[in-house]
């Protein structure tokens, strides 16, 4: 088989619970597939590097394609997709995000998907390079201490120096 360049970079730009999965799933799988992986976290993607991941939420507002099925209860009930049945305006109630976040975490656990915390630890332990965008940290008023240990800090040029050595890039 033709040996291709084995490096991969990911730009993670989203900071909600649902979009936290793809970068960590793909990065950890990349490492398992013998690739070298770097993730550049910028804008809302910085959320994924915070020490406290409990702030990651998924909102039903403006998220019309999210399926909403009960992760527990009788089989017939679990089959119903409530997503399209509930008018978006009704979600404008306090704690709606907490409810959908709770349901998504339940659904993920029920389907044997690892927690974000665990996926992130796997990525770190297996050598995924995690780079936090220095510029966004400044703009959003974060401190370096807000983030987990063992990550790197850099700007767009740092991303490009990683990308120059890779032939597989994803923007998430």
């Amino acid at each position, binding site marked *: 088989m033709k040996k291709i360049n084995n490096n991969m970079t990911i730009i993670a730009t989203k900071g909600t619970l649902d979009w936290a999965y793809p970068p960590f799933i793909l990065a*950890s*799988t990349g490492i398992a597939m013998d690739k070298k992986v770097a993730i550049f976290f910028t804008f809302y993607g910085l959320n994924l590097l915070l020490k406290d991941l409990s702030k990651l939420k998924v909102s039903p507002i403006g998220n019309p394609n999210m399926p909403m099925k009960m992760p527990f209860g009788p089989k017939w009930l679990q089959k119903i997709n409530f997503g399209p049945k509930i008018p978006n305006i009704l979600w404008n109630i306090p704690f709606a995000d907490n409810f959908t976040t709770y349901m998504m975490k339940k659904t993920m656990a029920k389907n044997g*998907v690892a927690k974000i915390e665990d996926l992130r630890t796997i990525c770190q332990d297996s050598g995924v390079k995690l780079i936090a965008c220095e510029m966004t940290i400044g703009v959003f008023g974060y401190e370096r201490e807000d983030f987990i240990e063992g990550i790197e800090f850099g700007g767009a040029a740092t991303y490009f120096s990683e990308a120059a050595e890779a032939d597989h890039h994803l923007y998430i």
Partner: protein
Amino acid sequence: MIEKTLDTSGLNCPLPILKTKQALNNMKTNQKLKLIATDPGSVKDVEAFCTQTGNKLIENKYSENKYIFIIEKQ
């Protein structure tokens, strides 16, 4: 001879692959790993994993609602 058995029943993508990689890391060349999975995606994934990492997929079958793979470490 099967050197090691790894049961990933109930686990979903990407955990079966990550655990397979981990298990193979601790094995010697030509030793065989038996992988059991319930994730239907693992059929394609294990094949792709073996092609990419150069390990040999010797057997790939489905029985009693489980996907069973025999992988020889290269």
